[in-house]
């Protein structure tokens, strides 16, 4: 691969024992990090070093390590999923950093995403929003109409797919100065509103999902656009506008 080399870095990582404890930034020095490593592999390396010196390893969320599960989070050097765009933290590679760089690593910060431990946060607020309306009310009998019985214009299907590409990582909330979840909710509302199968209950869906979103303590959208820039899947602000529209019509209905 292109220009692999090793760098030494200084890490400033948020450490917090559990939800109730107070946390603080700790400093670690890590040498010989391959620039071909992913950011999480670098953290693996740090943890190996910590374990070998009988210190407690850093807890962080991660799973698929290919940018699709949405488990990894991390606010790196002041940005959700780090300095690159259109990627998750697990897709961030150390070649984005230079020798002797200092790297800040913090958990997502939001009232609705309390810290569980170190860099791990509780994103169950997203779950409850989904449960409030993020579905089509159809039973799983398999006895529905043929999949091709209702044509869906390609343009709509493509827009719905783009909205559905959301991985629910929470970078939108983390990078929004208001801790707003509207890109997440807007994407879900849009996916279904764009498809004939989802239109039937579109009005109830948007009212219920927004109500739940408000109850969870997320902030309000002020259209700064940070979420769109930091979204690893490039979910468009158009989806927030569509939600605004859907909600407006649903409210006056």
């Amino acid at each position, binding site marked *: 691969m292109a220009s692999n080399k090793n760098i030494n870095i200084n890490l400033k990582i948020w450490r917090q024992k559990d939800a109730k404890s107070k946390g603080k930034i700790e400093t670690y020095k890590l040498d010989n990090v391959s620039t071909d490593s992913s950011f999480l592999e670098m953290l*693996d390396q740090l943890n190996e070093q910590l374990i070998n010196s*009988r210190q407690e390893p850093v807890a962080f969320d991660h799973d698929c390590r290919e940018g699709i599960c949405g488990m990894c989070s991390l606010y790196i050097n002041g940005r959700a999923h780090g300095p690159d765009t259109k990627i998750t933290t697990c897709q961030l590679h150390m070649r984005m950093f230079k020798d002797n760089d200092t790297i800040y690593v913090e958990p997502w910060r939001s009232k609705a995403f309390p810290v569980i431990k170190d860099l791990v946060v509780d994103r169950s607020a997203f779950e409850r929003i989904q449960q409030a309306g993020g579905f089509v009310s159809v039973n799983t009998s398999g006895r529905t109409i043929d999949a091709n019985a209702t044509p869906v214009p390609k343009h709509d299907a493509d827009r719905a797919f783009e909205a559905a590409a959301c991985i629910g990582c929470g970078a939108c909330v983390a990078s929004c100065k208001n801790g707003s979840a509207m890109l997440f909710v807007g994407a879900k509302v849009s996916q279904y509103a764009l498809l004939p199968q989802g239109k039937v209950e579109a009005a109830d869906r948007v009212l219920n999902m927004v109500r739940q979103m408000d109850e969870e303590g997320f902030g309000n959208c002020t259209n700064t656009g940070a979420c769109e820039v930091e979204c690893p899947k490039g979910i468009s602000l158009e989806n927030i506008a569509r939600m605004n529209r859907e909600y407006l019509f649903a409210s006056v209905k």
Partner: protein
Amino acid sequence: MLDSKIPKGNISDKWTDYKDHLKLVAPNNRPKIDVIVVGTGLAGASAAASLAEMGYNVKAFCFQDSPRRAHSIAAQGGINAAKNYQNDGDSIYRLFYDTIKGGDYRAREANVHRLAEVSNNIIDQCVAQGVPFARDYGGMLDNRSFGGTQVQRTFYAAGQTGQQLLLGAYSALSRQIGQGRVEMFNRHEMLDIVKVDGKARGIIARNLITGEIERHSAHAVIIASGGYGNVYFLSTNAMGSNVTAAWKIHKKGAYFANPCFVQIHPTCIPVHGVNQSKLTLMSESLRNSGRIWVPKKKEDAEAIRAGKLKPVQIAEDDRDYFLERRYPAFGNLVPRDVASRAAKERCDAGFGIEANATNEGVYLDFSSEIISKGKQTAYASGNHHPTDEEVIKLGKAWIEEKYGNLFQMYQKITDENPYETPMKIYPAVHYTMGGVWVDYNLQSTIPGCFVAGEANFSDHGANRLGASALMQGLADGYFVLPYTVSDYLANDIRTGKIPTDSPEFDEAEKSVRAQIDMFLNNNGTRSVDHFHKELGLIMWNKVGMGRNEQGLKEAVAEIDALRAEFYKEVYVPGSANEMNPELEKALRVADFMELGQLMAMDALQRKESAGGHFREEYQDSEGETLRDDVNFNFVGAWEYGGNDINAEKLHKEVLEYEYIKIAARNYK
């Protein structure tokens, strides 16, 4: 001893007739019955949602922070169904036939036929749920081809089909959670199953946030916890994917079938360094458009590895499109095991192009497709004399629309632009066809314990065809388990709530606690990852793409020794009553160690080559697999024999082929 419970009758009516005669549970009785579902991937989420819709009380468990993150989400290419929308002669029989043949004649006919039958319902169901499949300009669903087939039956959503299907199942599950029909336990890991009177009656789970050990009872337990590819440490599986749930039930009496059948996927990004934690798959769908090659001349390969030549500098005549050469009928779309072995053969022969320790890598080249699709697009838009630049520009745009996210993913990882230079790929561990043995009802040898999705062994034989895993997961969860589980539960309407204060629960919890305490007090010198990597190396080198008797015997002995060292030397920091990722890993690796050994034993006993299981001793003169249908036409199901894995006992379920003529697999 092993009763597969395959119903009698003609294969195309079997499932329908069987369903019609299964016992039912009346709607008023269903709320009296609890069902536990472990794992929330396609199989688990769809099963949990379906059973809850029916009215059962469902408790679902996943170790991630949301059911939506299960590793089904990472499936890229697509899902098969015999819709024949493309009018290319597809049918249920053909899908059935292709799957059996693709599995190298080591799967059960009845199960596979059922899978093919319900495949069409899956697509209807998913579309009704709002899954945004790719469509053509007429608004109809689009299809593409996958390996091992000569029809276009694969439905897809860009390179994120698994994600879209899982989110569909997750939305159905979320709906049930929202209605209080499913109680969801996120960040929970099942650490044991509880049997009462021989039946599965509950589980012991650890809350991964607080460390609390919890007891959960139910009338039936469904395990849908995925495959065991992470036994190799490096695989395309998620970091958390593990075999613990499946292995724990194995230790309590569920047979484990065909553990040696592991799929090595041909198109993954090659290994790059010692700190690498996982391998990334590049979807098989890319083989629709990409051509696989290595240089014809060894000196060219050497020059490329040394960085003196670039792939684009190799003349067309000096490239060896080895899949097209060896398998002209299927070309680049041969099944995965075939493609992987062919790549290994070239690299072993010294033609590998990757500049790493093993030189293992081949090219996946899109330049021909860029030109052909560019021309096509130009024509379609009325430009009949496009310039070369226009063609390339349009071709790249076409590629981007089809595979954009995969190309981006590749570029982020490798720092190379696959639109300009061919991708470098190499096989990696991807999927495990083996798994818990189940009968036609998907019930394991523990009554009341059902196993679905990748966690069971049932449908893919010795090799899985692309786009069939998603199909199987959803088929099991949506369309099989709701019937067969109900049939089982019909006997439990008078049982009442299963108490969790029984001696059986006490015993199970005690042993879980003992294992946790053992790890935390072990105070060794090495991290869990150290042992996991060691295990992975043994597995990859000796129980990997090419296996032989000597290597397998060594593997058995080495894993045995490694396991002993693991228990002596592993160091697990932290405590039991907190979030402790190292402890989680230790518990998982303990099970991988045992399973790894069993995989080597299974590979050793299977003296033939079939699908993903390639015994170097059993190949023909052209290096193709040589099956032994006389002696090994069976499912090898292992019964746990106590702490010493060598004491596992093999049971054989002989496979009978009534509707498909068993033959040598030929993709030439």
